[in-house]
C-alpha cells in the first residue's frame, strides 16, 4: 500500500506480525472469551482484560473488594468461558490445610490409605475471603500456588495445568481476620478491585435475568490446551531492551523513594515483565510496548508497595510512581 499523503487515503493500520501459530483463531477465541465475560460482568472491561492477562501470564489473582460486587461471578464466568473445572473454597477461621489440599483415608475394602484430593486440585480455585483463615491454612494454599504441586504425607502430587487461583478478601472487615503477610501477597501476580458498577451497567444488571442463569448458558470459548498454547505464546512475546530499561527504571524509582519502606523485589520485576507480555498478546501484538507495562503496573505493583513507617506525606501510590518515571 503506498504512503498516502495525509488527509487522503485510508489509515495504514496493519497489525504487527503475530507469532502464535494460528493467530486469527487464537485472537478470535480470546476476543470471544472477553466478550462473553463482558456480557456477565457489566461495565468492568478493564478489570476483565487484566484478569485474563493475569491468567495468560500464569499468575494468580487477588481480588480485594466488598462483598456483592461480583467476585465470585467473575471467577465462575472465567472458569466457564475457559472451559476449566472449578472449585470454590470458603475460607473460615477453622479451615484446615487438609480441607484444601486433601487427605488420605484408610479404606477398609482395599486395606490401604487412599488419597482424597482436596479442592486445590481443580484447574480454577476460588479462595473466598482468604484472610479469614488461619495463617497456617493460608500458607498451605499459597505454597501450593507457588509450587504448583502439593506434598501431603510425604507424597508430592502435581497440580493441574493450567492452574489458576483467584483469592478474594474484604478490606473493610478488620475483626477476626488474619491479614496476608507481605511475603504472601508477593505470590499474587495482580491485585484488582472491581468496585461498584457504573450506573448504566447496574441498571442493566437489575433489568436482566439472574447472572447465575446467564452463567449456566455460557459455553467455553477456549479449551485448556489452547489456554496453555496462549500461555506459552505469551512468554515468547518480544521484550525489547528499551522496555527492559523501562522496567528497571520503574523498579529503581520504588527503591529510591523515601515514602516506601522497601522497593520492589526482583520477583516483582519478573512479574511486571510477564504481565506486560501477556497484555501485549491480548492486544494482538508480538512485542511489548511501554503502554503494556503501564497497563499492568498498578495491579501488579500496588499490593507489593509497603509505605515507610515515618513517611510523612503518606505512601506514594503506584500511579504516582508511574507518572514520575520517564519512558526511556
Amino acid at each position, binding site marked *: *500500500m*503506498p*504512503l*498516502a*499523503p*495525509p*488527509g*487522503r*487515503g*485510508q*489509515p*495504514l*493500520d*496493519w497489525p*504487527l*506480525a503475530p507469532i502464535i501459530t494460528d493467530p486469527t483463531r487464537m485472537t478470535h477465541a480470546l476476543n470471544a472469551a472477553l466478550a462473553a465475560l463482558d456480557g456477565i460482568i457489566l461495565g468492568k472491561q478493564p478489570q476483565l482484560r487484566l484478569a485474563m492477562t493475569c491468567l495468560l501470564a500464569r499468575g494468580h489473582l487477588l481480588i480485594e473488594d466488598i462483598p456483592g460486587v461480583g467476585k465470585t461471578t467473575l471467577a465462575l464466568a472465567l472458569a466457564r468461558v475457559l472451559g476449566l473445572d472449578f472449585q470454590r473454597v470458603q475460607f473460615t477461621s477453622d479451615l484446615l490445610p487438609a480441607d484444601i489440599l486433601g487427605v488420605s483415608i484408610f479404606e477398609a475394602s482395599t486395606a490401604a490409605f487412599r488419597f482424597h484430593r482436596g479442592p486445590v486440585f481443580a484447574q480454577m480455585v476460588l479462595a473466598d475471603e482468604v484472610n479469614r483463615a488461619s495463617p497456617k491454612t493460608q500458607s498451605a494454599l499459597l505454597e501450593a500456588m507457588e509450587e504448583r504441586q502439593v506434598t501431603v504425607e510425604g507424597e508430592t502430587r502435581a497440580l493441574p495445568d493450567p492452574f489458576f487461583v483467584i483469592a478474594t478478601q474484604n478490606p473493610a472487615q478488620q475483626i477476626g481476620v488474619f491479614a496476608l503477610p507481605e511475603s504472601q501477597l508477593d505470590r499474587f501476580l495482580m491485585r484488582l478491585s472491581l468496585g461498584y458498577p457504573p450506573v448504566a451497567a447496574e441498571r442493566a444488571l437489575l433489568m436482566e435475568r439472574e447472572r447465575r442463569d446467564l452463567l449456566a448458558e455460557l459455553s467455553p470459548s477456549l479449551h485448556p490446551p489452547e489456554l496453555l498454547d496462549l500461555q506459552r505464546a505469551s512468554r515468547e512475546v*518480544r521484550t*525489547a*531492551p*528499551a*522496555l527492559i530499561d523501562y522496567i528497571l527504571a520503574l523498579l529503581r524509582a520504588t527503591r529510591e523513594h523515601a515514602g516506601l519502606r522497601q522497593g520492589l523485589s526482583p520477583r516483582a520485576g519478573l512479574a511486571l515483565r510477564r504481565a506486560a507480555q501477556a497484555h501485549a498478546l491480548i492486544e494482538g*501484538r*508480538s*512485542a*511489548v*510496548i*511501554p*503502554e503494556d507495562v*503501564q497497563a499492568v503496573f498498578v495491579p501488579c505493583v500496588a499490593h507489593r508497595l509497603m509505605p515507610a513507617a515515618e513517611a510523612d506525606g503518606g505512601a506514594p501510590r503506584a500511579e504516582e510512581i*508511574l*507518572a*514520575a*518515571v*520517564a*519512558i526511556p
Partner: protein
Amino acid sequence: MSDYLPHHALLRLLAVLALVIAPHLLRLPLWESLAVAALLGWRALASARQWALPPQALKLLLASVAFLAVYQFYGRVTGQNAGIALLVLMLSLKLTEMRSRRDVMVVVFLMYFLLVTHFLYSQELWTVLYLLTSSVAITSVLIDAHHPGEPLPLRQSWRMGGVMILQSLPLMLLFFILFPRIPGPLWGLPTDAGPTRSGLSDSMSPGDISQLILSEEVAFRVSFDTRPPPPEQLYWRGPVFTSFNGRTWTASSEDLKRRIPAEIEVLGGEVRYDLTLEPMRSRWLLALDMPDPRRLPDKARVDRNGALVLDRPLIERRQIQGRSFTRYRLDAQADAALLDQDMEYPPWSNPRTQALARQWREQGLDPPRIIDAALRMFREQEFVYTLEPPLLGRHSVDDFLFETRRGFCEHYTSAFVLLMRAADLPARVVTGYQGMEANRFGDYYVVRQSDAHAWAEVWLADRGWVRVDPTAAVSPERIERGARELFEGVRATSGLFGAYTDWRERALMTWDWVNAYWNGWVLGYGPEVQQLFLSFFGLDSVRNMLLALTAGITLVLLWIGAGAFGRAQAPATTERALLLWQRAGRRLARIGYVQRADEGPRDFVERVREREPALEAALDTLLDTYLRLRYAGEQDRALEIRLAAAIKHLRRPRP
C-alpha cells in the same frame, strides 16, 4: 490479470526502460523505435485498465515477426547493430508476458545487460555519466520489485539505488585496475566495426582538407617534455603522397610495397613529447618533423617517404612517446632511380602548368630559383587563401593557377608539387597537421582536425628533401596563427560555428581537459599502461595481478561482512528509530503536541490523532513503523525509510 508490480511501480519500470533504450533509438530504424514505443505504451495501458496479456500464440507470432523484421532490415541477426536491434525488440516484447516476480527480474537484468551495449558505440565521459544514472535507475526498479504492493517513495528508492551503486564502486575499481588487460580496444567488436572517424585519408584531392578543417574533433593531444618548437616548425607529419593522376594525390603502390625506410640524419633541435592519438582507423602515425629513427614508437616503422606507418590501422587510442629533431637531413643520398618516380605526372593533364614549368627550366633557373619562382608567383599574383574555393574543371591545377586563383592548402600544394615535377625536380605532397592550441587548464596542447594541412617537399642534391609550404607564401598567418584563428570569420559567417565568446572557449577547454584525462587514464588504460602503472607496485606479471585482485576482492568482502556483523551486533536500528521518533516529536511539538515523559508512544499518537484527523495516515504509519523498529526488533531499512517519510507529513495542513 494480476501483475506482480502495482500500477505505478510498473510505470516506473517502463520509464527506466525507456531511459535505457533511448540512446539506441537514434541508431535503430524508425519502425523499430515506433514498435518499442507502442509496446511500452500498451503495457502501461494494460496495467491501468487491467487488460489481459496476449495469449501464447500471439506472443509467439509477435516474436517471430520481430525476428524476421530484424533479419529483413539488417540481413543478419548477429553482430553489433542487428544484435542490439534484436535485443531491444525482444526486451520490449518481454513486457507482453511480464507478470510474475520472475519476469520482472528477467526484465531488470536484461536492462542491465542492454545498458552495457551502449559502450559499443561510445565511451565518452557523457556516456559513462548517462549509464551511471541509468544503472541507479535500474537498481531502483530492482528495489521496487522487492517491495511488492507498497513501493517506496520514488526519492527513497533512487537514493537507495544510488547508495548501492556507490557501494559497488570499490569492487569496480579493483577489477578495472587489476584485471589483466588483453591487447585491443576494450569495447571493440571484430565485425561490423563502429563508425569511421574523420581524419587524414589515403589520398588528397581538392576539397578534402578544407572539408576536414570544419571539424572540431580532436586529432591528438600532445604535451612536451622539452620546450615546444615555434609555430613555423610545428609540422606534424602524416601520410606522404607521391602519385598524381591529374587531380588526386595518392601514396604510390610501390612505396607501400617497398619497406626500405627513408634515411634520416638528425642534426639538432631535439623535441621530446607525449602524444595521445585518437583512433582514426588509419595506418599512419603522426610525428613532429622528423622523428628520431633510433627511437621509434612500438610497432611503427619509417616508410620510404619518412612517414611513420603501422602494420595495422589504429583502432584504439594510443599514447606515443615521441622524439623528434627539427633540424635534419632526409634522404640526402637518395637513389636516382627512386627519385624518378617522384618526378612523374600524367603528361596529358594540366598543359598550361607544364608549359609554365618548362618555361622556367628553359630560362636555366637552378632548383632553388625554380622553387622561389613558384612561391613568388603565389605571393605576388592575386592568389587568395580561402576555405570556399570555386569548383575546378578537368585540369584542376591549370584552372586553379590561371583562372580561379582561390584555394586552400591542398590546392597550393598540389599546384606547387606539379610545377616542381614539371620542372624536373623531385617533389611530393606531405599531409598532416600544422599548429596546435594550448589548453590553459592542463599542461598540454590540442591538435584538431581543423589543423589539418598539406605541404610540399622538394628534393635538392646534398640537402635531401626540403620542406616547402606554398600556403605560407600566400597566407603566412596560416602558419603563424593557425587555421582556426584565421578562419574564425568564415566559420561565423558560414553559420557553422557561433562566435567564440570567452566563456565558451573556457568551457570547451575545461571539457577537453577533463576528456584528456578520461582518455589518458581510463580509456587509455590498456595493457601497456596497466603494466607500467602496476609495476610501480611490483605487480608486473599476470599472476601477481590476479593474486592482488583476489586479495583485494577478499578484503572488500571482508570489509562488507565486518560491517554487516557490526550492524548485527550494535542495536543500531533501534537507536536510529529513536532518533527518528525524536525528530517526529520535534515536528509535532511545533504544532503544539508535546509528548509527556511518562507517555507511551501509542498514547501520544492517539492523543494527537484525535485532535488532528488530517494527519491520521501519517500518524498511523509513524506509530506502526516506530513500534516495529524499536520494540518488535524488526531490522528493515524500508521501515526506517517509511518512518522518515511519514515524519515529513507531520505538519498542520494549510487551510
